[in-house]
């Protein structure tokens, strides 16, 4: 079960749809974990989308390497982490020609970070598609110390930078690629509600 239906939320919260092929054209594809399955599905619907594709796959424990290699993208790269490919990804964005499309697939954390990087590089928002697969862990910015905590799965959670206990908002910044975390016991220090798994 890698597809998730998110509950309706506020307008700043990103929504995701299955990737849609724009055919053979310059393309960057970046996926992590179960996101590889979304790329495989896209290629099955329209194999031509791979003709000019630069594919970057971060397995994060998933095992799609054989099938991903078999797609025979123009360029294919496997990486151990997002941090490890940041420089490569930035270069791909900087080298991108007019009309290049970006396909992102996988966790919200990867999609958020990678879309923010692409927007900062000048890619228009309309050229970016994102399909969520797998974990619903969130990438959260602490509004107080500004540190980002990756892979947040509970609400509230502890900021990995300043240690405040934060609640998980749906308010999302595309520029930061992160949701907003706000101190949950600001008015009544020490009165922290019980941690719950976040829901889609």
């Amino acid at each position, binding site marked *: 079960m890698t597809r998730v239906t998110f509950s309706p939320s506020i*307008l700043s*919260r990103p929504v995701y749809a299955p990737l849609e092929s724009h055919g053979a054209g310059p393309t960057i594809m970046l996926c992590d974990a179960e996101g590889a399955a979304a790329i495989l599905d896209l290629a099955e619907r329209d194999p031509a989308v791979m003709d000019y594709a630069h594919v970057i796959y971060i397995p994060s424990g998933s095992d799609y390497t054989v099938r991903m290699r078999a797609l025979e993208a123009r360029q294919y790269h496997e990486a151990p982490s997002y941090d490890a490919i940041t420089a490569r990804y930035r270069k791909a964005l900087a080298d991108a020609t007019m009309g290049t499309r970006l396909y992102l697939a996988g966790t919200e954390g990867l999609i958020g970070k990678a879309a923010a990087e692409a927007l900062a590089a000048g890619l228009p928002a309309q050229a970016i598609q994102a399909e969520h697969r797998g974990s619903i862990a969130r990438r959260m910015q602490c509004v*107080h110390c500004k540190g980002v905590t990756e892979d947040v799965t509970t609400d509230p959670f502890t900021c990995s930078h300043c240690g405040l206990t934060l609640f998980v*908002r749906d308010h999302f910044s595309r*520029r930061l690629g992160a949701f907003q975390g706000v*101190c949950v016991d600001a*008015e009544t220090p020490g009165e922290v509600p019980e941690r719950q798994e976040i829901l889609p």
Partner: protein
Amino acid sequence: MTIQFNDETFRDDYTFFNSPVAIARFPFPFDKDDYMYSVNMEPHETGPEGTPFDVRFDVDEHYVSEMRDRAITLDEDPLRCQSLPHMELAGWDLLELIMVSKAADYPDLFTLNRDGDRWHWINKPLGIEQRFTFGDPTTLPYGPMEYITRQAQGDFAVLDQREDNLWMDAGMVTSQADWSLDFDIGMNFFEWHAPVPKAHEMGVFQRALKFLMHVNQDTPARRLNWTMTVNPRLDTSPENYHKWGPEKRTITPENVGQKQYLRVELQTFWRLPRSNALAFPIRCYLINLEDLTSVPKWGRRLHRVLRDLPDELADYKGFAVNRPVIVEYLSKFDDGAPTSAGIYPDETDVALNKVPARV
């Protein structure tokens, strides 16, 4: 016109106060006895005399102390003032608008001499004199938006207009009702308003956006917004919520009249000539319940508005926890008498309270 500037604080010992003149000219936001979101936009025309609506950018007795408070906040957190790279021209537009307006509306306080692009600005209340070249940021100690908004009361958002939308791409935000410029910068109109309950479903933002995109240089607009704040604190930012949050729980029936403030935002909207950006000043006015109820019409009306406000709005505005105490306090000032239309005090109200009829 001479203004006596208060020496006061908006944090720690909270020595902020409103003089009788400031009370009488307070921009009370409710024109009737109930409240719901609406596109309450109107032309920013001047008048009536003495009110905050009488000039383009109101300067009042809190000016000098408010600017001092802004400087403290900026020292602690420079991210309260940000401008995306494409917004510098809009910063110059804003600087021009504010300097020209202040110099014309308060000639005894501000002077602007212009010789081509060589400008000479004098701000007497803050003791600033600056010669600079308009358009050349190296001739100012800060970027143009930061320079001028360190000398102008209220927060400032500067909105870029493109793709049929308005984008929060620059701002100076140190006296906000709990929103973060650092988080919201770069968002479009619908994204940064996303957390507001009910109003999206009511179509308020769609209509407001249409209106705002058609604001022209010669048709500035305004609206009033409001919330409730404990203590006269300008910096009610999410960044510092864990610092001011505990103060919200200090309201008691004994102190509510003095510690609980109605916080009013006079929002104005200005089309900027070179950048086509929209300047969006958000000027904050604070008044505690004790001073507010000295105007009988306002006491009656605020009681009815807060008593009948939908729970979602009280939650969103962040005073649900104190509402029972506030409403109980205000009920003593509501004799059930009918109230007159509009926001201004009645003639008899003013006479009763011995505040100048013309302020």
